[in-house]
């Protein structure tokens, strides 16, 4: 636990002094504002549903870029070997870095808190639905950060790792829109694995155990694969 906390603090410090993180945060807030503005002008509704589905897609591109440096950069600087031979376990390393990314995402979402406040000023939003929408976005962020970490653990080049992360996550978005590509029956089966389908309920105020399990399973798989990828350095 102390190991996780050490890595978490270290990564947050790196984020805090890294201008790139601020640039990503600014882009994220701009996109959030844009989706929010388009959503309310198109629908006139005191809701974050349009924002949530679009923001999930934006997360798909932003988060692998945000997490790409975690292992790729350590490897480039030669500090990964040091970390792996230190008393810290690979498990602490993976979880610490993942938690740091997730914390940054939570701060990003906190930055969008002005949007529900705008809704409250001009209307009467359903706060239960607002809360579940953010919960859904945070679960998506958790899974995408884990995927970004996995891609970062595979490649030495940061940019390549970021792009690999996006490529890995794209199918989870595309299967949500499967009905446009394949027949109804097949679409129904494969779309069960789409991120947007599992985010949809949160946008209506519903917390479904299947949706939560989906995101938890996705996150767990990617974190486990990251752990295995780091461990593989011992026998490769």
């Amino acid at each position, binding site marked *: 636990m102390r190991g996780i906390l050490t890595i978490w603090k270290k990564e947050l410090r790196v984020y805090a002094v890294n201008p790139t993180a601020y640039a990503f945060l*600014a882009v994220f807030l*701009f996109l959030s504002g844009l989706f929010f503005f388009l959503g309310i002008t198109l*629908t006139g509704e005191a809701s974050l549903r349009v924002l949530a589905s679009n923001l999930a897609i934006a997360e798909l591109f932003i988060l692998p870029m945000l997490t790409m440096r975690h292992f790729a950069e350590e490897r480039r600087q030669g500090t990964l070997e040091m970390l792996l031979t230190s008393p810290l376990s690979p498990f602490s390393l993976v979880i610490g870095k993942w938690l740091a990314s997730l914390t940054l995402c939570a701060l990003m979402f906190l930055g*969008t808190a002005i949007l529900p406040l705008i809704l409250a000023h001009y209307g009467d939003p359903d706060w239960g*639905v607002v809360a579940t929408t953010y919960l859904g976005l945070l679960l998506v962020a958790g899974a995408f950060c884990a995927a970004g970490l996995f891609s970062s653990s595979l490649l030495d080049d940061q940019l390549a790792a970021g792009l690999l992360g996006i490529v890995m996550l794209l199918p989870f978005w595309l299967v949500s829109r499967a009905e446009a590509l394949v027949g109804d029956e097949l679409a129904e089966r494969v779309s069960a694995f789409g991120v947007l389908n599992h985010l949809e309920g949160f946008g209506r*105020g519903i917390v479904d155990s299947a949706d939560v399990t989906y995101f938890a*399973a996705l996150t767990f798989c990617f974190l486990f694969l990251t752990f*295995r990828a780091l461990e593989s350095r011992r*026998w490769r």
Partner: protein
Amino acid sequence: MAMSQRKRRFAAGGNAILVSALVVVAACVAYLIADLNRVRVDLSADQGSVLLSDTRTKLAMLDRAGSPVMITAFSGQRGKKESYFKDRALLDLVEELDFASQVVEVHFVDLDKDRLTAEKLGVTDYSTVVVQRGEARVDIKDRELFRRVGSGAERRLDFLGEQAVARAFAQLTADNHRVVYTLVGHGELDPQTQDLGGLSEVAAVLEQDDYELKRLDFVRQTDQPVPRVPDDAAALAILRPKVPIPPLEEDLILAYLAGGGSVLIAVDPGTPVPSLLGRLGVVIPSGRVLDKLLVFPYPDRPVPRYKGHRITKDLADDSMVTVVSSAAPVQPSVPAREGIRSSIVLETSRDGWIDRGGEVKNGQGLFEPEIDGAGPASMAIALEVSSDSGLVKKGTARVLVSGDADLFTNGLLTEGPGNSSFVLNSFRWLVGDDDRISVVGKPASVRRLAISAEDIDQIRWLALGLGPILVLLLGAGVWAARRGR
């Protein structure tokens, strides 16, 4: 040496791949198990995202029947202002129906794109829902799915789709068309009157279960050789006669009851009490029911408590309040009549009483033990009359006596969250559709923003500019501080 190292790497790699694959498979299995045993919690304020208890009851009936039901919902017209809300409401509904039932299959069709499906079903209008079960089919039009309420800035669009689909389920479930007659000719409440004192909205609510409300006038009855309650009557409602019902007509009602019929009798304080109530062991004492627990701001509207009757069980479980207006006390006679089982349906709290005039403070009556009757005071009772009573020859007759006739009018139907359910469940119990008794809900409405053209600029700046600029300034500060070090 090199060979053994390669072997070791191969073994370790193979093991790692196998374990990873197993973990991924285990995660997929965990998800599939969770998908099959879903637990859903609706955290929205109006609980509008999960299906109403009434719809769930009907879906359970369809599931029990087994034959598949196909729901095809067609999109709204693209580019129209309300299409987004309409499509989203329909999509949410069909998704919930699909989730809640084993036999219901749902399709959402973009009418502009999928013309073939529209032509196959003969649908030409946007925002239409087609519900099919075998050969039977019910088409639900846009005007039945959505209702515009209010005007100006207060104008909103209510979604009535769930109730409409539930009504379609009722129409498609076996042959459940029932006729409920309302007695007229003595100044009773009229099903054709559309004002607050009428029953037109009640008739619409009853339609949800395919119950038809028809007038019955013994004097002008031309379709029978002798006046009588028609054979197709599932129940008879006598709602607040303003003049006493002639004995001859009361005999006709008793004859109907003798055949195992069902009757709803509703009176108000001070209105004539049908004398047949006495034969059924029901007493309507003088006065009106009051309670310290009142519906604000009305001084004559006690908050009723539900007693353990089938009509109100689900309302009690869901804590749905039924609002009554000025109510007359309704009591079973003591001692109870043989062969008549009476149950209190609505009554006041222990702080309630039967008020018979006297002192009034701040517009509210006060309990005066010397003239008033002590509470709790019952406002509605249900009777099951068996052949042991000597009144019934065949089966068991059901009678519901309410001390508040307004409870069944348009005016009070939407006054309390439980009112429409109480009315519909009363009739369901009377006609013997006990398995349909459930809570019906209110329409879902969209939460609109009140934004003017000037507000738009302000929102654009706040949403798009403020956050990113602050973050960029912070980032620039951090960058400058690091360079300065």
